[in-house]
């Protein structure tokens, strides 16, 4: 796709695991919002892929999102376009990094030890990771845990926290500084919103917690055995078939080495305290409130 008018000559460059990309946006507010959201991915790389966001002002009724020459979506909502850009990034990062095993999970880190939260959508894993990052742990990801099957280390994928409206009251201080039209569907919160040193380095899985958000329940945790943990890890693996026996062996090793738990989450603060205890981390202030 040729560079559209209104776009800067030298757009920012990013690397998300094996994906080197840039984002070209014709609208200055969209551009600034996306650059802030993806700041943790900034890297001096030669981009292999180009995302383009075309604004509505140039004879179009809707924003358009393109990846290279492919039209991904159109919407009158800039917030929806940014949300879908981030979702596309998730897919493309997995595809561009086939040597890693991916879990649909969030994760945070402390002193090189990671706690992983594998779970399906709407389980509260983003809110939990955000709460723990605010509590002083470092952010690994809220969506894709990337495991090197040889070393069993986790490679950070520090995409912006994608916070849905139900979680906004819990993190009012992290509201992105952007026009309402860019954040009225979903907030894309950069990890730097919770501190200058909020992004984790490569780390070693230490604890596995399978969260399940259940409004109104008492927050509670229970241990699960390694075989059950492996089955649940596999259920949340995104590329196990492609990873083959090596990927399965990596997940089995994680299940064997890491204590695993199921966490019924009713209140964010209580859930954060439990996770901090599991990691042996001294508690810091955790904002009270339920998970949205």
């Amino acid at each position, binding site marked *: 796709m040729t560079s559209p008018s209104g776009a800067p000559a030298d757009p920012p460059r990013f690397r998300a695991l094996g994906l080197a990309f840039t984002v070209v946006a014709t609208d200055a507010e969209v551009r600034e919002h996306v650059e802030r959201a993806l700041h943790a991915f900034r890297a001096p790389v030669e981009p292999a892929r180009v995302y383009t966001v075309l604004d509505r002002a140039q004879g179009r009724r809707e924003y358009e999102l393109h990846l290279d020459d492919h039209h991904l979506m159109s919407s009158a909502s800039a917030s929806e376009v940014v949300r879908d850009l981030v979702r596309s990034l998730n897919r493309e990062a997995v595809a561009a990094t086939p040597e890693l095993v991916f879990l649909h999970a969030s994760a945070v880190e402390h002193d090189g030890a990671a706690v992983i939260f594998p779970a399906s959508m709407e389980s509260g894993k983003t809110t939990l990771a955000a709460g723990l990052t605010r509590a002083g742990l470092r952010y690994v990801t809220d969506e894709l845990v990337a495991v090197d099957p040889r070393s069993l280390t986790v490679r950070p994928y520090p995409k912006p926290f994608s916070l849905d409206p139900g979680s906004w009251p819990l993190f009012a201080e992290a509201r992105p500084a952007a026009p309402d039209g860019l954040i009225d569907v979903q907030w894309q919160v950069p990890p730097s919103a919770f501190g200058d040193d909020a992004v984790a380095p490569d780390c070693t899985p230490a604890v596995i917690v399978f969260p399940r958000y259940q409004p109104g329940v008492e927050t509670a945790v229970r241990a699960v055995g390694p075989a059950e943990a492996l089955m649940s890890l*596999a259920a949340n693996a995104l590329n196990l*078939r492609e990873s083959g026996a090596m990927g399965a062996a990596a997940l089995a090793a994680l299940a064997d080495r890491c204590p695993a738990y199921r966490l019924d989450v009713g209140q964010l603060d209580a859930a954060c305290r439990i996770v901090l205890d599991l990691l042996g981390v001294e508690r810091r202030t955790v904002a009270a409130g339920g998970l949205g």
Partner: protein
Amino acid sequence: MSDVAPSSSLVHADLVPRRRASVHAFELGAESVLYDDVSGTLHHLNPQAALVWRCLDGSGPISELAADLAEAYGAERATVERDVLGLVDHLARAGALEGVGPSPEAGPGDEGAATAFLHDPPAP
């Protein structure tokens, strides 16, 4: 010929079951999880099922295996054989065994999906 009725048309007491080479067993505590490299499916075995799985090396028929387990556990042979037949039937239907049941390529379940079955153990 065993006097115990087969649990299905797929398996019978004279069958000599053998683990499929594409199926990897991960032993986690007393339990095991099987991963089929071809179909991408997983199967969760309780301790008793994991023990039987380790014995499915193609060296003897189910009736013989059941007799050995019954003797080792001091259990009634017919009960043990019924349980082993049930487990082998599940494994065969999951495509985990050579020469019986569907091939892994045409195996049950969604690609990459994790499926679980837990079996009643042979009576100890």
